[in-house]
């Protein structure tokens, strides 16, 4: 009797394991599936309430993708998003890494308060800031230019990423830098030769996080940009694919799919490092 109950236990455990796994896979993959199938369905099929939305009733079509790429400037919007994303990531790294390092190392109690102060600025929402900032953008003559976004987006990426890098640098023992300083480098040299290579996980985290924030940002992009050729994906798609009360569902979903898949891949590719990035210091 004992072996059979043992086996039953094993099977039920395995079953539970797979059940939970399957549930999570369905949960995370289902939105992608829905976007994907909607992209290729004919509008008639989509809008018929008697049809199951998750299977094809009429043959698939490329019409929605044609509209997306031929009748809107989606390709340009993607390029714009990538451009702003890369610029903002660069600026964020340039500011957040040295700031995080100095907050982690070079100041005492004041550094801690300063760190909290910087983090607090992250909590001021764009809905409060976009009106005053639009004046700033206008005064700088940047209205309707992607550079306005490059200028404004770091205002929310830098504080958070500074905080993130600070936690990261704090977890690196000082001994390592001191050893490098004795071994022949200045503090700056030790920083580049030892601290930065160890912090790759944190830097990756900052890059992915910043890029995600830029991709999904809506309010500033809507406020500062008026020409369609300067839109980012997050503004262009809802502006052009929702006309009055007509939703171009197929093209909308196609646009969302194309914009979200690279980020999903990026996340998954660096998942381990990403988690390490967020939990470092917490498990010290």
């Amino acid at each position, binding site marked *: 009797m004992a072996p059979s109950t043992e086996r039953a236990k094993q099977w039920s455990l395995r079953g539970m394991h797979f059940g939970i796994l399957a549930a999570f896979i369905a949960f995370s993959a289902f939105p992608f599936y829905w976007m994907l199938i909607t992209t290729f369905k004919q509008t008639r099929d989509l809008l018929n309430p008697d049809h199951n939305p998750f299977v094809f009733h009429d043959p698939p079509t490329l019409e929605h993708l044609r509209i997306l790429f031929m009748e809107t400037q989606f390709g340009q919007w993607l390029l714009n998003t990538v451009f702003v994303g890369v610029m903002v990531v660069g600026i964020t790294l340039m500011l957040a890494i040295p700031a995080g390092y100095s907050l982690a190392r070079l100041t005492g109690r004041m550094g801690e308060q300063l760190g909290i102060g910087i983090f607090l600025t992250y909590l001021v929402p764009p809905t409060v800031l976009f009106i005053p900032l639009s004046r700033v953008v206008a005064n700088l003559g940047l209205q309707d230019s992607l550079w306005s976004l490059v200028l404004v987006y770091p205002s929310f990426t830098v504080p958070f990423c500074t905080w993130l890098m600070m936690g990261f640098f704090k977890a690196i023992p000082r*001994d*390592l830098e*001191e050893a*490098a300083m*004795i*071994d022949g480098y200045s503090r700056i040299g030790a920083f580049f030769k030892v601290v930065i290579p160890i912090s790759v996980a944190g830097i990756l985290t900052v890059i992915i996080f910043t890029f995600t924030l830029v991709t999904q940002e809506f309010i500033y992009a809507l406020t500062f940009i008026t020409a369609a050729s300067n839109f980012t994906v997050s503004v262009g798609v809802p502006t052009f694919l929702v006309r009055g009360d007509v939703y171009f569902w197929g093209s909308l979903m196609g646009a969302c799919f194309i914009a979200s898949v690279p980020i999903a891949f990026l996340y998954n590719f660096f998942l381990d490092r990403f988690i390490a990035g967020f939990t470092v210091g917490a498990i010290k």
Partner: protein
Amino acid sequence: MAIVEARNIRKYFGEVRAVDGVNLATREGEFLVLLGPSGCGKTTLLRMIAGLEKPSAGEIVIGAQVVNSLPPRARKIAMVFQSYALYPHMRVFNNIAFPLKAQGVPKKARKEKVEWAAAMFGIERLLDRKPRELSGGERQRVALARALVREPDVFLLDEPLSNLDAKLRTAARYELQQFQKRIGTTTIYVTHDQVEAMGLGDRIAVMNEGKLRQMGMPQEVYDEPADTFVASFLGSPPMNMVERNNDIVGFRPEHLLPTEVHGTSEHLVTFQFHLSRVEHLGAGRLLYGLLGAPFADQKVIANLASNVMIVFQPGMSYTFAVKTANLKFFDRATGLRIEPRPL
């Protein structure tokens, strides 16, 4: 090689006087041990010599040059940290080559030197590993090889053996000493472990509360302590200290022996010893007890070697004695050593 000197060095952290006016100088090629309890300032002193801390006052001299204003990299020193501070993202080879790379040594010479340093410590087969794949003893050797590879004037070692288990530590201690004798580089070694200090040092500098208490050869510091702190810090079990009038009389547990064990021709001072507890250590016995009049009820320990066969019963009184020459006298107010006087 170089002589390291600290001239009236002070380091204050706010109100805390971590190092409070230390003067000391090594000799050429010497193995000097800085010994003291945690918080006595020995690590701070070492870090000031390394240039990782700025002294509040005083001068650090290395090889007849005042180095106060020089950064660590310009002082021709190498340091081994308690944590070893191996660079986790580099293989052992690159860890050892790191100081050479910083100095701009060409690649070929770098490889030769790394292999030479690795051979010194028998770690040639580890060169391709990452630090996290090494045991504690291997990490320590890599750290030493990294320190050695640039052939510094001075080695600074900050408790490099304290992360090793007890058995390994003894072997590592011996290796370290042999290595230092072989290359003959002036070495300053910080530890709180008096056994390590006695075993390793050419000389020991005992520190407490930011001050240098005594400096001398191990046997000298052990036999002729300059004050009550040094007397009680060195030796295990520590020196017995009994009060008498305005003096403190000290004697080592191994010198407190039953009268019959001493030779007859020697000048002895006898004590009544009320035995309360016997501890068998295998290599000998520790007898805990109280002294009789005139040192009524002061606790002492006697350390008997295993060749003393006499049976002792707790609760009984015995006559013990110490050679007059082995009694050390200290001033009760200052704790400083004073001239011997009759009891």
